[in-house]
């Protein structure tokens, strides 16, 4: 079994599209576009998120799209939107302007913890699916909401592990476990991961993928951290497929308990 072989035979499939990498990265918080590009290449990810913002007429500056490697799919997000209407407006603008008709749906009214509004997210998701978008909603880990989002036709559900940018890891594990267990569409753990071990934990648990931004963009060496996350995601996925042993309260010896050199009696 080769390292590459596993990922090739086990693609992440979202809305019929195959991705060899189960790591999606965000493009925010890098020290420069150049470092961002190096990190995206090092991560081997095939989809990156971007935000949509008005252009500052006094400082047009460089376009991020000029810095992204060829072949990497752009996933526009609706970050900054606080209602379903705002999110639908941003998605329509992005698609009309030539971006993919995939949208990472975020409806976040709470600035302190950046927690998503499930009700507004569901309303926007239903509208956007109706309009032909492939919708990837960012949600609190809520298995009931997951069902509803699946029913309206979302392509994934993206539960947060911990608040955005917090780096705290898989704090909401138990609820996400239930989501993984009952999933009809891929579960991509999004937000709150701080270290590659957190990503590996998500994948070992059976998540279909992870989305990472801050932990890579703000690392001391973002391209190296991007590579570390890629390896962790691959290791975690491989471990999940290989079958992780059941935990035991007591020790289970790894060496034979008979035939000891010091065993004098038969």
């Amino acid at each position: 079994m080769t390292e590459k072989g596993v990922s090739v035979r086990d693609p992440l499939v979202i809305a019929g599209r195959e991705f060899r990498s189960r790591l999606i990265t965000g493009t925010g918080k890098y020290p420069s576009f150049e470092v961002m590009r190096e990190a995206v290449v090092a991560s081997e990810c095939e989809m990156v998120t971007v935000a949509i913002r008005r252009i500052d007429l006094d400082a047009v500056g460089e376009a991020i799209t000029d810095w992204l490697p060829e072949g990497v799919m752009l996933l526009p997000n609706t970050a900054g939107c606080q209602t379903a209407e705002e999110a639908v407006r941003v998605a329509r603008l992005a698609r009309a302007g030539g971006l993919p008709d995939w949208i990472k749906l975020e409806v976040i009214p709470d600035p302190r913890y950046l927690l998503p509004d499930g009700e507004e997210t569901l309303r926007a998701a239903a509208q956007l699916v109706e309009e032909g978008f492939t919708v990837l909603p960012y949600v609190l880990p809520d298995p009931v909401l997951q069902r509803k989002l699946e029913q309206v036709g979302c392509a994934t559900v993206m539960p947060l592990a911990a608040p955005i940018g917090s780096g705290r890891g898989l704090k909401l594990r138990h609820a996400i476990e239930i989501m993984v267990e009952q999933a009809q569409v891929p579960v991509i753990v999004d937000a709150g991961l701080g270290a590659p071990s957190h990503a590996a934990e998500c994948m070992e648990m059976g998540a279909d993928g992870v989305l990472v931004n801050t932990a890579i963009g703000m690392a001391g060496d973002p391209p190296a951290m991007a590579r570390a996350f890629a390896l962790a995601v691959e290791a975690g996925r491989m471990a999940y497929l290989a079958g992780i042993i059941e935990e035991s309260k007591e020790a289970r010896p790894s060496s034979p308990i008979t035939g000891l050199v010091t065993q004098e009696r038969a």
Partner: protein
Amino acid sequence: MKVIVNNRELELQPQATVETLLGELGLQPRYALVERNGEPVERSRYGQVELREGDRLVVARPVAGG
């Protein structure tokens, strides 16, 4: 002809299109996202959609984000 772009008043020649506006702003049409009077404009129509006096436009684009 005056139009409002991202809350700022700009003077454009008569019959200016969305494409003309983007050119004035020094933007490539690729991934310049345009909303005119609240309605998104299809990129394939940037060269055809003529602006009118008083139009309110939003010009946006993808930026770094998670």
